[in-house]
């Protein structure tokens, strides 16, 4: 009897989850379908997901040839990697100092961090742009990376995680003769991988997809990031080239999905351990 009830519950649960998944996936289904349609087929009165004439090759060719996808993707990787590396390098020692050292400014830092969480880049874009121009660093990786070199979210996340690292471990390291910097590099970082993975997902997702800031500071196409590439498929005045747009979107989204799939187990684990949840 219990067995029966359990299986009924499971069926219900599975059905619900699957239905939800279908709804969440719907836009992607249409995206994939559209990426395979000829332009004249995309908007029609009859809904059909499967293209009448398969134009995947055509659309993907367009997506790849119209813009230099390799440059875009490479720039995306470089920029995201740089941002992520610098963010970690900056945030980890700071979070360590706040979590584990007698640091009188820790409270003040906490306020700064909270404030930082609230300020969107849209708000500060203009002063930053002017400053970057004065320094003649527009159109460079520096301009793309610098404003994100400090991630208050990262500090926040690592802080939560480090608080859970036992004090004894730090003490043992001190007794073993490590300097504080040594402790960060040799003890804290090697044990913070779950948190770093979780942060990596947040950081990379945000900056891979960021359109706003690259648009502001990059005019030279050599430094264009993937979302900038999508512009080439948009023609506001006359309707977009949807097939190619979707194909291009797929191309630049796939690396992220792959990254998430690889990291996702550690990701949830990392968030659990960071106590980010509260």
């Amino acid at each position: 009897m219990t067995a029966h009830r359990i299986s009924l519950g499971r069926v219900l649960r599975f059905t619900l989850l699957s239905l939800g998944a279908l709804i969440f996936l719907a836009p992607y289904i249409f995206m994939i379908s559209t990426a395979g349609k000829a332009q004249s087929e995309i908007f029609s009165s009859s809904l059909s997901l499967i293209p009448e004439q398969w134009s995947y090759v055509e659309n993907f060719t367009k997506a790849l040839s119209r813009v230099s996808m390799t440059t875009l993707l490479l720039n995306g990787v470089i920029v995201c990697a740089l941002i992520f590396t610098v963010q970690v390098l900056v945030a980890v020692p700071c979070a360590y100092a706040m979590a584990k050292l007698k640091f009188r400014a820790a409270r003040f830092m906490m306020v700064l961090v909270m404030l930082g969480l609230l300020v969107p880049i849209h708000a500060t874009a203009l002063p930053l742009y002017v400053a970057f121009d004065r320094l003649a660093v527009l159109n460079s990786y520096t301009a793309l990376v610098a404003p994100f070199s400090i991630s208050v979210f990262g500090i926040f996340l690592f802080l939560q995680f480090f608080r859970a690292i036992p004090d004894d471990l730090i003490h043992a390291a001190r007794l073993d003769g490590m300097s504080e910097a040594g402790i960060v590099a040799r003890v804290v970082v090697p044990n913070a991988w779950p948190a770093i993975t979780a942060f990596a997902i947040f950081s990379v997702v945000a900056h891979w997809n960021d359109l706003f800031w690259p648009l502001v500071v990059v005019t030279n196409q050599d430094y264009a990031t993937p979302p900038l590439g999508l512009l080439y498929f948009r023609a506001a005045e006359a309707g977009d080239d949807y097939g190619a747009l979707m194909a291009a979107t797929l191309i630049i989204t796939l690396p992220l999905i792959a990254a998430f799939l690889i990291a996702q187990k550690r990701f949830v684990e990392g968030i659990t351990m960071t106590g980010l949840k509260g």
Partner: protein
Amino acid sequence: ETVLTVHYPMPGFFKDVMDTISKKFMEENPGIKITFANPSATYEEGIQTIMRQAGTAEMPDITFIGLNRLRMVNERDIPVDLGPFIAKDGNMAEQGFSENILKLAQVNGKQVGLAFATSNPIMYYNADLVRKAGGNPENPPKTWDEVIALGGKIKALGDGVEGIDFRWQGDDWMFSALLFGAGGRMLNEDETKVAFNGPEGRKAIEVLDRMVKEGGLPVLTKQAGEQAFVAGKVGFAFQTTGALRNTIKNVGGKFDLRTAHIPLIDTVNGKLPTGGNAVVILTRDAEKQEAAWKFAKFAAGPYGASVVVPGTGYVPNNELAAKSPEYLANFYKENPLFQAGLEQMPRMIPWYAFPGTNGVKVTQAIVENLSRVVEQSATPEEALDDAAAEVESLLPRS
């Protein structure tokens, strides 16, 4: 070798055109090299980019600016006055730049650019639906009354079919089409008072109101309207010729697409606004300016037009291009859909740009009030009066 950095908006639209033109230009002018800055998604974003970059090292040498924004850019003293270059050349008309065409890119008499791609509003229609609703596609409606009547019939066909799509969203261009078509104007002669709330304006907005009430004009976003039309769900679409090429591609073989002149409320004095953009020189470097002037003329010239027109649907802004068989004469024979725009060219007048710092906001005020009419949340009179009052308050006080 002189290197020119060129910036342009809407790459989805202009990229191929720009690539072709610059390639040809560099072939003809070996001493000049064209590089492209990252293009901007829209005209608006293009202007923002230029504004931000004005005076900085990042500023491109040449850009393309929407015709209705030339005035604003000029107020900030960003474009280079082309008057001296024209004077130096002396033979602009021979190169196909008639006075009328030069005027499109003048602000208060100053030549801030050369019109590059120009458009006017035309009527697209779905011949299949027209036929179904009892109309004759060979003889499309010539007046708004006819359009509205037929639109109503098309709407009555059901099955989610709409009668009319009128691109009133985004800016005041299509309202201008109605207003200018009635012989009206936006402001009075000396630009101190609103004039669009006169009788011409009332007729114009009433047409819009009747389209909604009788002609089957639904509330659609711009994209939704286009998509519905190319899906074969809308009888008439009124918008720029610039969208023609894309519309043809999107429609494919789904239905019988036709174009025709846009009806005019005043068939005698009616005018039409000119859409599109002008090539503008930004560089302050004399040597670069020379090169840039060459490029500007080349792009806006007959070769440029012969590339732009077939690729987009814009009308030629160069008289040589339209007439010369070397360029486009044959094209028009073979592509009758493009002819409506061409034939309307004589009626084209500049797209009116409002004076003062609130120029852009003014157009927003107009669009918002139009939307009240389309949503039927205000009578046309109310909407027009409100719009007039708002615009009045946004005009520079002097």
